[in-house]
Each structure stands twice: as C-alpha cells, then as structure tokens.
C-alpha cells in the first residue's frame, strides 16, 4: 500500500542563504521531492529602464554597472556598443582592446563567483568560496588600477574607455596571468577528484537543448547542453574577430557540465587577455566626441555582448534628444530563469539549491 503523503509548501527567500540575492521561491514539496515551484521576484527592481529615459547617454553607463553587479564591465560594454551603433561612432583600436581585456577579466571574476557559490551551495562550508574570492580579489585590484573602482567600474564610455591603463598596470597584469592557470588547475582538481562533489553534480539538473532554445536561454547554460553558440564568435564585437579562442561545449547539460564549461571559459578568457596584451597597439583610447551625445531622431540599435551569464543586449531608440526614448535591457539572468520549472521540478531540495546556483542568476539583472 503506498503511503499517502501531503504536499507541503515552503517559502524560500527572499532572505535565504542560497537564493543568490533577493529571490523568492514558493516551492511545493512531496517529502523531499519538488512537485511545483513558483518564482517571485522584483524585490530589487529599481526601474533602470525608466531611469535611463531621464539620463543622458553618458550618465546611463553608471546605471548599467548596477545591473549585474558582479560583472559590471560587460554591462558597460553592451551599453556602449549600443550607443556607438546608434550614433555610428568608431572606437579607436586601443580602446577596443582595452575593453575586451577588461571584459574578459570580468568574465573570469564572475565565473569565479559562480563556481565558488556553486560549491558553497553544495555544502562545502566557505572554503572553496573564499578561495575563489581571493582570486577574484586580484582581478578587482586590477580594476582598481584601471579605473579606481572595484565593483561599479563605469570604465567604458561610448566611444572607448575612460582612461588608458596606468604604467604599473601591465606588470601587475602579467603577474596575474602567470599565476592564474595554476590556480585554475587547483580548482578543477578540486572538482574532478572529489567524489562527493561528483555524485552531487553529475547527472543532476539536466536541461535538454531544445527546451533551452525554446526558453531563450543563453550563455554557459546553452553551451553546457551542447550548442557551441557564443556571441563573441557568432556576432563579433570590438576586436573579438581578431582573437583566437575556443568555445567549450558540454554534452549532458547537467550541473557538472555547467561547472566545467565555466572552468574552461576562464582558461579561454586568460588566453584572450594574453593576446590583447600582446597585440595592443599604442594610440588613443577614446573617440573624440561632443560632451553631450545627440543621436539622430528615430535611430535605433541593438548592442549585445556575451556576458558571463549569457546574451546581454541593450535596445536603444533615440528621439533626437540627449537621452534615449526607450532603453530596453535584454537580461540573460531573467531569460535563463524562464526554464526554472524544468530545472527544479522532480529534484530534491538539496539539488534544487545546486541547480539554481548552477545557472548563475544575478538578481540585480533579473529585476533591473
């Protein structure tokens, strides 16, 4: 005789140790098994799109910092690309290289955070997280040298970057590039050789590719499920078409693959940064632009980058004024969250936390 059990509903969040921000889930459990889940968000909604309609084009850069606050550089970059396409600005080559370099460093930092929190969610109390944060700290130090800020960088501007890198930045970057691969080996070893981690992530949270495409997912999640789609390759921006890098692809689309894809992407990012350092030509870093940008009336543009979370796009429409008529942000975190039901239903409570961590959402970007 089967035991008759009663489903119970548990509210997880908005204040919960592992919902990665102010994210709330109303989960219905049958024992430990999840039978239904309803995400509730909007707790961090700051109306960025509305605010952008009241700022001028340069001021909006600071708003983009606050979207995905662990990957500000790529946010800056996506927005600047959109504005440049809107106005037809040509960015100096050195500026483009600096942007790519900063964006790739930011990708490493963001993936480190994602990896560290994934391990934290697995229950490894703090240790891997602290180690990941230690390395991220080195990148933030580099950012501090570049632009004086660590998190909300506002380094990129329409037309290039704010300043050229200072003299002592380059030796510091060299030291970082020399050191980082050995650390990544260490981190990967931690994953590949720990039996407990493997049984927790292998074949857990599988996402089929067709479902991901239908749900508009992008970024490492898509690649972990087997589609080699990277906007840096598919639609190169800045100087990406002149740089060599591979797009790592997973096979199963489980948590292990997502973790693995991020690890490999960090290595590729290091490769890109190294190429940027070698190839970077001297010259100006920012195009000569008027103080206040006024794009032509009726112009519209879509600028997108492959942010650490996926496709980050800015859709701008100008009415000829000093601020955009409409600024739509296509946020990867929100859209990756769409298949949350596929990701969580049918798994256990412990897996739920890990699955949620593995898609690496950022509430600043989901709620905007």
């Amino acid at each position: 005789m089967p035991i008759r059990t009663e489903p119970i509903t548990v509210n997880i969040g908005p204040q919960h140790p592992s919902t990665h921000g102010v994210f709330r889930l109303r989960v219905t459990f049958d024992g430990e098994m999840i039978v239904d889940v309803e995400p509730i968000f909007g707790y961090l909604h700051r109306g960025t799109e509305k605010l952008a309609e009241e700022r001028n084009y340069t001021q909006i850069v600071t708003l983009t910092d606050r979207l995905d606050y662990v990957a500000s550089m790529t946010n800056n970059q996506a927005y600047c690309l959109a504005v440049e396409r809107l106005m037809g600005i040509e960015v100096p080559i050195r500026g483009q290289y600096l942007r790519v370099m900063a964006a790739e460093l930011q990708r490493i930092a963001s993936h480190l955070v994602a990896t560290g929190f994934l391990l934290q969610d697995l229950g490894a109390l703090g240790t891997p997280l602290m180690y990941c944060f230690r390395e991220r700290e080195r990148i933030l130090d580099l950012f501090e040298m570049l632009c004086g800020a660590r998190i909300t960088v506002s380094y990129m501007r329409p037309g290039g970057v704010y300043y050229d890198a200072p003299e002592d930045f380059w030796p510091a970057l060299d030291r970082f590039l020399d050191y980082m691969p050995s650390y990544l080996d260490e981190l990967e070893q931690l994953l590949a050789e720990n039996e407990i981690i493997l049984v927790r992530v292998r074949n857990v949270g599988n996402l089929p590719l067709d479902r991901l495409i239908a749900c508009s997912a992008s970024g490492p999640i898509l690649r972990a499920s087997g589609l080699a789609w990277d906007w840096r390759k598919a639609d190169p921006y800045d100087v990406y078409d002149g740089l060599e890098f591979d797009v790592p692809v997973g096979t199963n689309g489980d948590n292990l693959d997502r973790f693995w894809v991020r690890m490999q992407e960090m290595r590729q990012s290091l490769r890109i940064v190294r190429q940027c350092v070698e190839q970077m030509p001297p010259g100006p870093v920012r195009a000569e632009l008027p103080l206040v940008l006024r794009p032509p009336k009726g112009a519209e543009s879509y600028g997108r980058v492959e942010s650490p979370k996926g496709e980050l796009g800015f859709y701008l429409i100008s009415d000829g004024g000093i601020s955009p008529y409409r600024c739509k942000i296509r946020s990867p975190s929100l859209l990756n969250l769409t298949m949350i039901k596929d990701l969580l239903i049918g798994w256990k409570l412990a897996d739920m936390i890990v699955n949620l961590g593995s898609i690496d959402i950022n509430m600043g970007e989901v709620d905007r």
Partner: protein
Amino acid sequence: MNCSIGPDSLFHDNVLYRHIYNAIGEFIPSSLCWLDHIISGFLIILILVNGVLLGAALYVWLERRVLGRMQNRLGPNRWGPFGLLQPIADLVKLLTKEDLVPQGADRIAFLMVPIVVVFPLIAGLAVVPIARNTFLADLNIGVLYLVAITGLSTLGIFMAGWSSGNRYAMFGAMRGVAMLISYEIPTVLSMVGIVLLAGSMSLVDVVNAQHLPFIVVQPLGILVFLLGISAELNRTPFDIVEAESELVAGYHTEYSGIKFALVQMAEFGGVVAASAVASTLFLGGWSGPFLSGQLGALWFLMKLGFFVFLFIWIRATFPRLRIDQIMAFAWKFLFPLSLINIFATTLQVYWLRDDTGALSRGDLGLMAAINIPLALVTS
C-alpha cells in the same frame, strides 16, 4: 581527619572523588559524613558541567580560528589574546537577547529542547576516564550507557523541529531522525569490536586493555566509528540536518538568544565529547608512551585535540551529501563493513584469548596484522 575514604571503600578507585571527599572531610564531623558525600557529589558535577562548557567554548574558538586559517581568513582575533575570549563575548551577546518563542510553537516542547540536547553530552562525558583512576563514574556498562544516553539527542532534534512550527525546522528534524537512527547502528556496531577486545564495557577497563591502541587493531572500527559519529553530530559531509545553504539553520531555525546558545553548545560540545570517547576507545585514552600515570590528562587532551582537529578539517573540506546518498552510504557501506569487523574480531578473540579472556600485546599485534589488510581490502 573526620571523614575519609579508606582502601576498602567502594569509592577508593576513583582518585578524583577520594581527594575531594577527603579534603572536605577535614572540616566535617564524622557524624555528617553523608553530607560530605553530597557536597563532593555536587562538586564533581560542577567540575563536569563547567569542564564541558569550557571545553565547548574553547572548541568554538578553535573551530572558528582553524576554519578561518583553512579558508584564508583570520577568524576571531580581537577579544582577548588570539581572540580567546570570543566565546564569552558571544555568550554575553546571546544572553542579552530577547527570549523569543514563536507564536505557532508548542511551547513546552520548544522550551525543553535546549535541556534535552545538552543533557546527553554532559552525562555522557561522566564515564570517560580523564587520567589514571580519574573519572567521575566507572560504570560497568559504560559503553552501553554512552550509546543509550547519546541516543537522546535524536529526540531533542525531533522535538525542536516539531515544536518550532517552522517548515525548515520540520524538514531538518525529519531528515535528522531518519539519518541519526540509521547511523546509530553502524556506530554502535563499531563499538562492539572494542567491547569484544576489552572484554568489558567499562571505559576504564577499555583503556587498561589497550596494550596496543585499538586504532591499529580495529582499523575498520575507527573508520566506521568516525563516519558514524560525524553523522550523529551533524557534521559535514552529513550535515543535512542543519544544511545552511538549504534549510537556513535546520532544526534550530527558530531558536534565538540563550536557547540558541545552548543548542549550539550541544553541537560543539558534542564534538568534544565524541572526540573524548573516540580517543578513549581507539587511542588508549590517558595512556601514553611514557609517564602515563603522571601526564595522563595531558595525553588524553592531546588525543582529544587530534580528533577535534580532524573534525574541523573534515568540515572545512567536504561538501554535503544528499539525503538518499547518505542513507545509501549508511546501509550499503557502513553497515556491512561494521558487520565484517565484528565477525573478524569475534573469530580472532575466540582463538587468541587466554584462559582469563584477556588479550596480550602480542595477540593484539597479530590481530592488527590481520585487520589492517582486511580494512584496506573491504573499504
């Protein structure tokens, strides 16, 4: 000297009790010797309780410092030398908090939980010998007593989860009951090997029987015991009862203030108690390579420290298993392993013991030579 314990007395073997009794006996007329017993009894309880509390507090400090060091940060280092007074600062803070009971809680059960979880750990330590002839009680069923009394903590966890009226706590309690009962079996079975070897359940006899530390005679036993006891204590990788990243704080989510302090103390004190038991059963307790009689307590503390450090190290290193994996591990791995251990030990004891049932150092060495390869093969 009015009241004193003579060589023929029941209490003569217990050095600690005899000394306290005799010291107080100096000031008490012989007609009131029963009072002396009461006072000494209370004094010894006072020593035990405070010792456990102090040990738990020190352990909290040690755990935070060592974890901090392992995690590339500092840990508490502000209050007192090396932050040693941090537990006191924490305690004062928790004491001054409001004593909250949630509205939906089952009030009586909720308030009883801190007592129920702290009691077994203090009572359990009573039978552990600290140095030669220095113990609070020498029960002839010491091991059985330990098993029985630590089993109570399961009850405390379930009461906490049920009475809180909180679903996280309920989840933690349900997981806890399932896991703790499952892990109790291999843990107890691993202790059976020790009892077979010592021929006695008294922990004092267990220490005396260890001509060779039982850790080498019972490699499977220590493996199963350590894994089982980690689960009993809700330590990583078996900390699903608390599971910070899943259940916020598990069964004690609703506890705050001094009740929280007591529940936490039960947990941290549990590690100390488990380490004490482990070092008594497997490392020979107070006996050491030299000066066991004089430095017994020191040897004991060093062995205890070794196990404590091991527990902290494991906590800093391993992620958590899922509940089904944990149950499978208990029933499919630990349980058969402990049965193999008992079977092998029984056969060896049956053939090797002498007429009095005792085992010599040579016998133990032979058993170690058999059991270590056995452990390597089976596990």
